[in-house]
């Protein structure tokens, strides 16, 4: 697993829906795993699902944009509203309102940052 993005849910969609969503995501190109995630932080903590991808699955802007667009579709398809996709850089993409162009711009910025922060490093290997 080389890359991971996170889906953040504004409220608990329920374990059943989360399981179904996880199943939906398996068909994505380069899918390498998924799981729910919670932190031990006080206060209103978001429920999250991490989604992992194999090396280079999100390497190209076009491929990453397409994959993230499909994730958004699948989340919407399960009737979940208000969720966001969080990129490793911390940038968040609104699933309800981001257009493909918006996603592409954010992905491009992320790739630029990745090139600057982690050009060859061991992260994720």
């Amino acid at each position, binding site marked *: 697993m080389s890359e*991971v*993005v*996170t889906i953040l849910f504004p409220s608990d969609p329920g374990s059943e829906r989360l399981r179904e969503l996880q199943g939906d995501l398996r068909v994505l190109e380069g899918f390498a795993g998924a799981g729910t995630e*919670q932190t*031990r932080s006080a206060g209103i903590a978001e429920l999250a699902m*991490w989604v992992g991808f194999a090396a280079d699955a999100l390497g190209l802007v076009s491929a990453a944009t397409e994959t993230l667009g499909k994730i958004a579709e699948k989340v919407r398809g399960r009737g979940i509203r208000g969720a966001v996709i969080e990129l490793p850089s911390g940038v968040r993409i609104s699933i309800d309102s981001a257009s493909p162009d918006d996603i592409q711009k954010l992905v491009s910025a992320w790739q630029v940052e990745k090139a600057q922060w982690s050009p060859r490093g061991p*992260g994720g290997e």
Partner: protein
Amino acid sequence: MAPDDPASIDHARKRAMARFEEGEIPEALAELTRLIDAPAADRGARSRQALYYLRLDRATVLRRANRWDEAMADLDEAERLIDGLAPLFQDMCRGSVAHARALILGDPANPGADPTRCLGELARIRRSGFAVLECAADDLESRLAHRAGDWTTAAALARRAAASLDDQGWPAAAATCRRREAEALLGRGDVDGAEAALDAARRHFDRFGTPLDLAHAELVRARILSARHAHDEAWHCTLDALARFDHLIHRFSVLSEQQAFLRDKLERYAEAFAVALAAGGDTGCLRAWSVAERSKSFYLCQLLASGSVALFEGVDPARLRAFEEAGDTLDRLDAQLGRLSRDDREGEPGQQLIARLHDASREKARALESLMRADPRWARVNVPGELDVGRELARMPGGWSLMSYYWEGTGGGAESGGGREPGRLHVFWTDGSSRPCHTVTEWAPQDLELLRASRTRLTGRVPRGATLVPEALGALILPPEVCGSIPEGSRLLVSPHGLLQMLPIHAVVIDSQDFAAGRWAIQYLPTLALLPLARQSNAPDPVLLIGCEQDGFGDRPLPDVPGELRALEEVWSEPPARPVTRHLVPRDGTPDAAGAEVGRWGGFGVLHVACHGDLPADRPFDASLRLGSSSVRSSDFFGIRLDGAIVTLSACSLGRHAEGARDRAVMADEWIGLCLPLLYAGARCVVASTWEAFSEPAARFMRALHAALKRGDDPADAVRWAQDRTASEIPFPAAWANWYPVGVPAGPPGRR
């Protein structure tokens, strides 16, 4: 004279100011405040005059303690009183107030500094026509020129002010101006001129100088000697000066006051650092290293030097009750906040609750400060002895290398690292032969931006796939000469500084391929000055495992916690077993009700807490572990003794330390958070996270960590093992690199 007679008040005021000049700032402030607040026998002109002087003097004391806003408020009050004074005095008084304001507005240590307003006040001073105020204006303009690096102007104005003050019979003020003249001439490279000016100043200081005068003059002398290459003599003067500064700093028994006072003092340590380093070679390296470490974590060193004072023992029960009740109030408000919906929390109900929380927090802080001030053992704080890094290197247990960072110039704090200017980072370390080494890495503004961005990212929620530290910074943080000289498999004790605090140096990428944690077991320490202060530890055998799956604060449940505690119990129960106490605190329960009150935690040698953690950025001493319906807070640990325990906190962010507290930016290098009271309480090592911990990876990490501790691994090695195990299952640094071991390494018996 009646006690409230204006003459009596004048006496008392002068006594307070005499104490202030001797460095007893908290005491002087308390006395002046008492005099200001006391009801006057009459409200006549002489009382108004007395009150005017009190306000003016208190503003001076507050300014010296870097409490700018309060000082300005006193000056505003003093100005309001002037109209009621004798007409003959009014112009002079207005000039005096203008001078005091200008000093505040022109000081770069003041976040509200306003050079334009400062110049306006200067113009008012010069219009007054009083010779003594004219000198004051010259002196202030000299300081401004000094800060701008205009040495010639600074020296000329200081010289003129000194001559005039001598003529008018103000020898102390004249001596101070001569010292400033010496500093300006040093800046210009005129060493002979600097020496002559300093000698003239010292003729007064040697007989009548205040502690601060003497400290400052000694440091200037050190710089002159250093410029003349008399490095050994310069070093002796530097040590003398630093001892004097340290003594002033350690007079503050309350953290917030000490931190405020420190703000402009760290420049002196930066000057001392330059003098020390100038000697060159191993000698210069060790001296500079010692100065760098002495400039860090004054308060924690003071706490440990004060040794065995358990803060809550034998104190006034009423004060202790006030402190405990304030904590209970905080818990109730936290719980109410937790039960609000997201909308309500962000709306009016939430804002009101948060405001009440802040009030309760202030109340608790005041109660804690009251305990600290009232305890006579606390008041007689010991000044930590002089740190000699060379001596500590020789005493380090085998298998350890030391590494320290020090940003040049600004003297420390989160501000250091250059701002918009390039930065020079000094890296000190010991190589495989325990030789002291030193190098400097040069940071361009864009490097510093990257570092700041990294630090910002590593706060709160960190995405699982995040790159923690940009690779480009690797060689700046762990330069090749460092990596090449510390053997793989060593333990590395790291003392960070400024912007490198809370950075996971163990997750820095070396040579574009390895994480530092892959090569060394890395442990952290706020400052190497803690090494000689660490107490002997005989950690008890028993192990405490305490956690909470669902607390009473409305936080999400943590289903991993019960399994984590059970797994750790199994680890410690394996032969040779250690006695284990396991508590799962229910939602409506408390540690006390579960028989695990904090006061009894000293009976355990290993303490593991698994729950939600909270560290409010602006209330670091309210950092808490949420167990049931109560919180164990940071400040609670001041009242217990942990005899060398290893503390592992399986919660979020509790390894962080704040960069501000109660609306005041923290200027110095203090680790204000949970680590400070735990180390004071005697913990040998604290393992905690600095960003939000993913619950399931936390449980994995802790299982591996405790397994390693059980088999006798040093905590640093145990953490490295756990990092490695966790990374093999979850290869993202955000999940495995979130745990920092902090503490003094244990040595062979009889050493620590």
